């Protein structure tokens, strides 16, 4: 079994050899390490991407807008991912961000996962009827079990998920009420003697 350290170093060096700058390659190394740690096929897709990159002219989008369309060829997932990380402050202001087509979306996801951690919000990604939740770079949750990521994704949509509870107020109240059964009802004597502070603190 390869260690994550080996995975990161090799992905970084291979990326440099594939034509990325050292700084970009460092980002790629980190992202592939993260994917593999989550049990996702980062190495497999990076390898395949580098081979396809030679014959496919993926489009580099460095300045991301709310809606991004590339009719001729899919966006390069790495330049897009790095741009997303860099422009996160601006992009966060959009509720939804749209891309017409992104090559190797799993590679792009790894950058989005890091973005989720940076802004402290979950990120929801949809493409080709697939839905993926990026949870603060702690885990990646999806609605498809085999995790067979395509080489190309159409109509990729990104949503920043506002930080809110996953449960209803009623569910919370019900659970809280149950938890109260661990508390002791205070008698007058306990009220006077069991707390550290005085009953009046106006002195």
């Amino acid at each position, binding site marked *: *079994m*390869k*260690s*994550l*350290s*080996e995975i990161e170093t090799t992905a970084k*060096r291979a990326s440099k050899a594939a034509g*990325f*700058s*050292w*700084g*970009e390659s*460092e*980002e790629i190394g*980190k992202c592939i390490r993260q994917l593999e740690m989550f049990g996702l096929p980062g190495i497999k897709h990076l390898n395949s991407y580098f081979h396809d990159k030679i014959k496919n002219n993926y489009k580099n989008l*460095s*300045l991301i807008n709310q809606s991004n369309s590339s009719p001729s060829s899919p966006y390069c997932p790495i330049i897009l991912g*790095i*741009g997303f*990380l*860099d*422009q*996160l*402050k*601006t992009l966060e202001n959009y509720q939804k961000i749209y891309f017409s087509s992104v090559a190797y979306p799993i590679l792009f996801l790894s950058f989005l996962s*890091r973005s989720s951690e*940076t802004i402290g919000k979950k990120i929801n990604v949809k493409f080709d009827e697939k839905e993926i939740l990026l949870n603060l770079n702690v885990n990646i949750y999806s609605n498809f079990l085999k995790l067979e990521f395509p080489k190309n994704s159409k109509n990729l949509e990104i949503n920043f998920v506002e930080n809110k509870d996953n449960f209803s107020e009623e569910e919370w109240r019900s659970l809280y009420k149950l938890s109260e059964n661990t508390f002791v009802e205070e008698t007058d004597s306990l009220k006077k003697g069991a707390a550290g502070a005085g009953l009046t603190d106006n002195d």
Partner: protein
Amino acid sequence: MKVQLRDPNTIMKLSRLGSFHQSKLSFLRSFLNEFKDWEYKRDLFNLDKFGYGETVYSFSKGRRTYSLVCFANEIKDDERSDRVIATKWDAAFTLHDGVPTQKDIDRLKNEVPKQEVGRLSFKELTLSRANKSVRVFNHVVEKLSEGKQPDLELLSKVGYLYRTTAVYGSGKFGLADRFRIKNREEINGPFRLEMMLVYLVRQFTFDQVNHVAYNKNPSKAVKLDKKICKNLGIGNSTGLGMAPFIVNHPTLLNNWVLSREIALKKIRNIKTVKKKESDLFVDCIKKSLTNITSWNTDSEYQQIKIKNLLKDIKKFIKFIDKSFDFKDEYPFNKIYLWLENEVCEECIEYVVSIMMEPYSEITTPLISQMSSEEDKYFTIPSSRSLKELRNIIEKKYSNILKINFDKKQNIQNFWFISKNKEEPRLADRFKESGSELEQPLAIARDVKKLYEKLLDTKNISTVAEFLSTNPGLRHIVRRVFIVEKFPYSEIQDNTIGKNIMPIDMLRLKLSFFGALKFDPRSDKWLRICMFQGAPLPDELKNYDEQWVYRTSI
């Protein structure tokens, strides 16, 4: 009195970093302190009469066990090489997480002796190999088998029976990644498990030499005297592989140097020094002379440094004996200021290290701050302005900006990774091929390039915009933002200039390991000694903390 931290522009120069010495903060000393109350055992000793076979040593506490698994092999003299190109070694080792089963030992027997071309698992933490100092080892075997102790003069010239030629950890060759073990309390200092491996290897060398001597002449052989064992360490040959580490781990480097600087600052700020503290300091200084006079090297470069150090230490001893009173206020600050004016860099840093000896209450809390969560600082704060980026460079790299990189001599060398061994190398850009595959270790040159680009950039306000059109400078932008937070994270020197001494980079790292007797064999590799004078495993429960200054050979 408000003494400040020393200026990184002075301290982070290579000549100064290359003058650092071991101290109480050094990793091998903090390792001994952490593991002193662990249970040491020799679990397996399966060597043939020539000393070849397997052994296992362990440290245990509670439910945790770390086991050193050793494989001693027969090699021909012409196969023995300290260079990284070697493929066979007298012994190979791995530190196993837990108690190895027979199945583990069988698996490791196939892999560990192969070193870089073998595969380890997440159950192994560190990997190493070592070669005998044949002259010393054979002499000791010969003498012990005759019922005599070895010649101390010969031992003092070398200082060890074996020298390691590499110690690997942190995920190399399939070893466990650091993240798997980083939350263990007992390894909250850097390189702690590497230190454990080396320490246990030292014990293996004594056990092996005794075993071989006994088998040579069972009726007459004696064991190597414990006092002699204690005064022997483990050698290490270190080449360029170590140099890029300190460039590639800026926050870690910062935490090492910053801890040292904080300790010095606190000591200089002590108004009144107790007699037992000053006595201990003076005692260590005086006893440390043995370490200098027994420091052998053929390197003219190092001989000059040692000569100057010895001269200056004698001058310093004369000063504290004749003209100095520790009853004065802030005595260590006065001593420091005197050193700055009177002695060489090597001597300043030597005394700074020894100043820490009486002050465990200062050094102990710092030890746990010498690791680093490097990933925390990886993401570039790209929403910040270019003006801020420029200001950081002007403030943190003022000396670097003065270097003219149009001059050939300032870009003479380049760092690369060799295809044969996947190890870092340094070569002349104008004589050798391969500079197009240069590693990103020319920080000074690239910072200057970034700065010049920033001066030329108009109508762009944020780092994000700048990076979208300048991807080639991304690695250095990341670095500048790290340096903003970590003052001692950058070598304030040119690492590709004609006059670079790579051994200064090696020495910096090795001093934090706790190495003694730096012996440069060229400007690119050196030999050192570790654990010389250190307590033996069965003495750990109660040992003299200043053992470094108590060596007698």
